[in-house]
């Protein structure tokens, strides 16, 4: 891979955290709290441990393949056909993620701040930004992410501590939630919250120091888990978990509560501005990954030009007449199981089989 695509440790950790922050922005904490209620903290620790074990397995399995991502490993396992098949699935997954992120966040912006504008203008602004970022180059996306992440992390900490006075610690009990089955059985579905694992399948070739992949993965995973835990704790202590009311954006409701002294209220617009940058960078990164996959599949020399088509497809998808109910179904059901299937199904199976093949080949 070209040197211009190689990222340092801090840059890649920032990108992984950016993915996590975007999951937090888009109601993932609410889906966790909605399922496991007051047992969410125990549930996050539980799924955090499970996901961590799987992450260690993935790291171990990827060890044998230097500078290779899931596509390269698929090619090694069963040739070009499998590579293309995995490529199409990966593109479908990343396009779905981008589509959900873009449409959801644009709708939030439209509802809260820009109700006088047609949502298509908001979508166009995002698409143009993503296109320009990808045309400029991956380094610029990575640097923007590195610049934004400290502010995004501070914003999570601010949202946690600044509403401390309003916390109702009784919302954290009963500590195991509704019952054991919901927290530890059904709650297993919350493993999708650590969706960042999907990106570990693809980031190895873009690392400047691939030998530090394990260190990078573990550090980014632990920080991501901590910010997820903090956000869910804030949400749990502020909002009731026994009712069926569902906010369009739970983190926005949380930050609306922030008051710094008597005079500073409604600081949500500052957070929204930060989130806009964060969504920009995140979507640009996802489109970059899609372009890279397409490049590998189609043997294109310069994937930058592919940005025009991927961005157009993304824009076209967002114009589909999908109502709230369908978005909710895609977000809460379809999206969740596709991610789980990819993280712990296809990805892991290919890695295991490729490792077996490699061991047999060595023998």
């Amino acid at each position, binding site marked *: 891979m070209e040197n211009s695509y190689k990222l340092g440790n801090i840059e890649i950790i920032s990108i992984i955290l950016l993915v996590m922050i975007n999951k937090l922005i888009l109601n993932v904490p609410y889906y966790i709290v909605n399922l496991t*209620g*007051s047992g969410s903290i125990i549930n996050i620790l539980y799924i955090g441990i499970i996901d961590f074990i799987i992450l260690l397995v993935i790291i171990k399995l990827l060890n044998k393949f230097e500078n290779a991502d899931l596509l390269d490993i698929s090619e090694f396992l069963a040739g070009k056909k499998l590579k293309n098949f995995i490529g199409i699935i990966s593109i479908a997954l990343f396009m779905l993620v981008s589509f959900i992120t873009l449409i959801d966040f644009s709708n939030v912006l439209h509802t809260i701040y820009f109700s006088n504008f047609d949502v298509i203008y908001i979508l166009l602004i995002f698409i143009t930004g993503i296109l320009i970022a990808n045309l400029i180059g991956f380094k610029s996306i990575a640097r923007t992410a590195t610049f934004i992440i400290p502010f995004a992390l501070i914003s999570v900490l601010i949202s946690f501590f600044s509403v401390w006075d309003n916390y*109702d610690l*009784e919302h954290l009990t009963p500590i195991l939630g*509704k*019952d054991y089955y919901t927290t530890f059985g059904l709650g297993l579905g919350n493993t999708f919250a650590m969706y960042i694992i999907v990106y570990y399948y693809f980031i190895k070739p873009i690392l400047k120091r691939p030998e530090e992949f394990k260190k990078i993965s573990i550090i980014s995973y632990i920080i991501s888990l901590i910010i997820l835990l903090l956000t869910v704790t804030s949400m749990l202590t*502020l*909002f009731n978990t026994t009712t069926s009311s569902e906010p369009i954006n739970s983190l926005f409701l949380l930050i609306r*509560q922030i008051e710094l002294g008597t005079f500073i209220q409604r600081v949500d617009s500052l957070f929204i501005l930060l989130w806009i940058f964060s969504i920009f960078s995140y979507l640009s990164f996802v489109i970059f990954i899609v372009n890279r996959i397409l490049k590998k599949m189609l043997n294109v020399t310069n994937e930058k030009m592919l940005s025009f088509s991927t961005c157009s497809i993304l824009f076209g998808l967002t114009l589909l007449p999908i109502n709230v109910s369908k978005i909710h179904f895609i977000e809460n059901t379809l999206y969740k199981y596709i991610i789980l299937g990819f993280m712990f199904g296809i990805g892991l199976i290919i890695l295991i089989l490729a490792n077996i093949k490699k061991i047999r080949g060595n023998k």
Partner: protein
Amino acid sequence: MKKILTLMIILNISLFVFTGCNNTTGIDNYYFIISIGLDLSDNGLIKLSVQNSSNSSESESGGSSDSSSQSSTYKIYSVEANTIDEGIAILNNYLNKKINLTHCSALIISEELAKKGVKTYINTLANNPELRHTCNIIISSTTAYELMDKVSNSGEVFSARLYDYLTNTTDYTGFTVKSTFGKFFQGLDNDYYEPTAIYTKVNDSTVQTSGIAIFEKDCMIGHLDASDSIAHLITTNDLEESVITLDNPFLEGEKIDLKMSLYKDTDIDIQLINNTPFISISVYPEGAVLSSGNNFNYIDNENIKKLENNINNYIEKLLNDYLYTISKEYNTDIVGFKALYKSKFLTRDEFYKTHWDEIFQDSFFKITVNTKINSSNLFNKE
């Protein structure tokens, strides 16, 4: 070619920067209201009133309202409608401006409407991104319109502070509670404690806070007086400061005033004895003697002890009266004992087996008061 391209880009940018737009919505297009009032009209609709500050002394009424305002600095517009949003739409049409709730500092609901249930109205407003969660909720003993009208005449010229004297009084009197929209919405949506709101009494010419409006689910079921409000704040650890008056133990027929606050958080322990909640509450008030007649001596430790005992008895009775009123008379858990008790269980299903909602009415209480007198203000002895 390059020059033409640059020129075109500059011209395009200039188009957006230097030209106005005929359809923009500016600050002039909004009608920033400072309070919303909700009443029940005679024909079963809701009467929506909105209040904004104005330099004019005239009064107006819009839509189908037949009411008028005597406000000199504030205008009140009323309309009858099926829903809040319909009412706002009618007022938007009448005022030829868009009503904006970002500066709304109070939502006033009449007692009559509150008793029929408020969830629909609260949910409607909660769904509006303009309304702040810090907006206060006030229950009016008469109509919301009347309260808004009386407050308009209070002489306050700074619109943001118009309702402050009703909503901030809890900080220094304890005669009512803090009741913000966010907290009230949480209470309505919560299974573990019932919501409360500021209760106000409207007299001929004035309006004043008068305890707490208490709810069961979304319906107001009654109100507690100022002394019950102090007891409620002590129990929920929300007491900032209050003045209590009790019999002077040193001089018969005289009264003694104390400025009271809490030096330690109230402890609550709940046990289930024979399927009946036994609730032990330990409170830790500290006080400063404000006035105690014409003869007092607080250099003497015995006197302080005697006074502390008297205060202990007074607060114990205050809390007992309050707790038995909410449990026996109203059967509403506004303190959140249920939330405290559920923390003793590992799962919600285990907690539900206790059938708390059914047994709460049978609760009995043990109050322990540990008062500390730490000051007698400027004089120790007279």
